[in-house]
């Protein structure tokens, strides 16, 4: 999905124009062009792809309905008519099928879950009960939302949104009966602002722009007080003290993010030995040293330390967020590393966890096994680096890794991770195409096309699915269409293993020559450097085209074992921790 060209069709049974205006705002990226579909024509619009609103270039849609309008059985429940649970859920299934059908027309569909206005309370506790032929409205609403989520879950283009949180956040101003009666706008601007912010956060996630690394200070950020002065026994953390508990809560929230694939690191002005022993020995620490992919604990400039960490972890500055209680340190990093996100941080330590949750920087369309075990992979990488420093030569080191590269076609077992990798890899990426899951599968299934996913493992563990490459053959000429590899496994000869598989396929289909054309992007210079200097492929003068003629075999590196897989199983990396 092209983040710079998002056009969302807003389909609703209530006035939603103001959400459209907020989505267009450039205060929060991305800018979303919004078109408002005809008011209160939801079912008709979802059902009919021939309607003009679908032909105006929208690549996303929002379907926001009132429960009593979308599901007639719920309207009857509110009128105290007899409705069975089966009838209610059958209507939800029908509505879900309309959304699924409409999802074929766009790349993303947003569906806020059903809510009732905050002022509505019906008959109180009775609304949560059921008896034969009668269901309380609140209970019915919970069942409806759960069923809708279940029915839409398998479609990765559909993103459910928790509208109840927007309502709670806006409080009694979330809805105004007068606004509804006079304008048919059900929700206030506060609700629309929250909704727009959530939609934009998901769009950033789809585009691979969510933050990957949180760099944390230690003193008064992960614990209260200065460890160098008080020792780890003297810092505020956990226990029965509101400030100590707030730091433990903050660490728990960070650990939760880490378990979904966000990497944690430390940059702190401290004595390293003192700080590390505090992390290891303080029993109240929720975060352990194995939760951190790396650290720079010294007295040097923090911006320099962050820059070094980013290089070590192979991450771009725009994927980093820096959290520090000290405004001067934040200002210094903001000024020196403008691409690093440095949020204002509350002076009140008891508000840290709330501030972290409010960031909306970590949304992603899905979480894979690789995501969940990402930090473990970095820890293993540290071990590899140690092995590298003890090896006599590069060849010895590569041989010692016992690299195994498994290539497989795209299928149900790997498409989610493959699409994620395809759309977020920037550095080792020959052409930087962006395709959805469905488009990737369709491309790979076309005649004379091959698209492989590559899994890489070595003696330290499994990196999981880390590469994708594709080739198409036409009239005896083959073209490498995609060639991308996670930075985690770059520079180990995996690239040559990938080239071997593509060239084998092209040769089998009768290609005399295979060409790879480099398309420059802002960040894919490492890919150009690889093809130019290390691939071993002949090139033109401008070093933009690289080729191999099939009158000779391409030399596969001897330190790699290439294995063909069928892609049917969901492989679980040994380092993924799941």
């Amino acid at each position, binding site marked *: 999905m092209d983040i710079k060209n998002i056009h969302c069709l807003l389909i609703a049974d209530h006035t939603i124009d103001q959400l459209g205006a*907020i989505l267009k705002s450039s205060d929060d990226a991305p800018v979303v062009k919004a078109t408002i579909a005809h008011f209160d024509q939801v079912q008709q619009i979802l059902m009919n792809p021939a309607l003009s609103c679908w032909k105006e270039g929208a690549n996303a849609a929002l379907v926001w309905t009132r429960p009593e309008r979308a599901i007639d059985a719920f309207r009857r429940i509110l009128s105290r008519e007899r409705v069975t649970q089966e009838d209610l859920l059958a209507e939800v299934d029908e509505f879900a099928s309309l959304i699924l059908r409409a999802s074929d027309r766009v790349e993303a569909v947003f569906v806020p879950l059903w809510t009732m206005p905050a002022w509505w309370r019906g008959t109180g506790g009775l609304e949560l009960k059921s008896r034969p032929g009668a269901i309380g409205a609140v209970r019915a609403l919970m069942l409806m939302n759960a069923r809708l989520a279940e029915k839409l879950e398998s479609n990765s283009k559909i993103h459910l949104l928790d509208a109840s949180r927007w309502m709670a956040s806006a409080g009694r101003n979330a809805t105004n009966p*007068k*606004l509804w009666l*006079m304008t048919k706008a059900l929700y206030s601007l506060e609700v629309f602002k929250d909704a727009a912010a959530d939609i934009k956060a998901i769009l950033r996630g789809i585009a691979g722009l969510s933050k990957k690394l949180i760099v944390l200070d230690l003193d008064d950020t992960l614990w209260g007080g200065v460890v160098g002065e008080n020792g780890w026994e003297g810092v505020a953390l956990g226990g029965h003290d509101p400030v100590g508990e707030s730091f433990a809560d903050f660490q728990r929230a960070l650990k939760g993010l880490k378990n979904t694939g966000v990497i944690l690191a430390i940059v702190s002005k401290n004595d390293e030995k003192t700080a590390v022993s505090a992390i290891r020995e303080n029993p109240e620490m929720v975060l352990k040293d194995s939760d951190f992919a790396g650290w720079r604990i010294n007295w040097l400039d923090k911006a320099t330390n962050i820059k070094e960490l980013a290089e070590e972890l192979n991450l771009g500055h725009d994927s980093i967020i820096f959290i520090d209680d000290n405004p001067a340190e934040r200002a210094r990093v903001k000024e020196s590393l403008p691409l690093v996100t440095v949020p204002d941080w509350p002076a009140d330590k008891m508000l840290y966890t709330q501030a972290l949750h409010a960031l909306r920087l970590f949304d992603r369309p899905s979480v894979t096994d690789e995501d969940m075990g990402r930090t473990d992979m970095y820890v293993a990488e540290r071990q590899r680096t140690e092995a590298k420093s003890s090896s006599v030569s590069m060849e010895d080191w590569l041989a010692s890794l016992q690299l195994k590269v498994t290539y497989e076609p795209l299928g149900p077992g790997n498409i989610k991770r493959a699409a994620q990798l395809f759309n977020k890899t920037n550095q080792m990426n020959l052409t930087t195409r962006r395709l959805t899951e469905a488009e990737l599968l369709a491309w790979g299934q076309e005649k004379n096309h091959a698209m492989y996913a590559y899994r890489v493992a070595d003696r330290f563990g499994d990196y999981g699915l880390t590469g994708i490459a594709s080739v198409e053959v036409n009239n005896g000429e083959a073209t490498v269409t995609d060639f991308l590899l996670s930075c985690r496994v770059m520079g180990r000869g995996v690239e040559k293993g990938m080239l071997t598989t593509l060239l084998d396929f092209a040769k089998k289909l009768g290609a005399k020559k295979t060409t790879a054309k480099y398309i420059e992007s802002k960040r894919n210079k490492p890919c150009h450097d690889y093809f130019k200097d290390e691939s071993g492929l002949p090139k033109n003068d401008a070093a933009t085209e690289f080729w191999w003629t099939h009158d000779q075999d391409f030399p596969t590196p001897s330190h790699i074992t290439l294995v063909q897989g069928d892609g049917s199983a969901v492989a679980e990396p040994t380092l993924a921790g799941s």
Partner: protein
Amino acid sequence: MASKQQITDAIYNAIDEVNAAQGSENQIAKDPKAILFGQGGKLDSLGLLTFVLQVEQRIQSAGHPSFTLTDEKAMADTATAFRTVDSLSDYIVSRL
């Protein structure tokens, strides 16, 4: 009773709120002379009603729970009362 300055502040607060949905070219200035309704105004009918309800909520929260800007009298006075920030402040003072 709220002072005119307090009422103007409540109106400015409501302007901040509605500006989020106004687009950069249609921002309403926080100025007594800023036009709210009629020729030169930047609010459409939905925007004006949203704005009026935002102001109403703020006045109600400031100790006037039964205050309304959406009754028949207020709607009849729209053209003059809602013309500018200053005229709206005066109108609210007269209704409190």
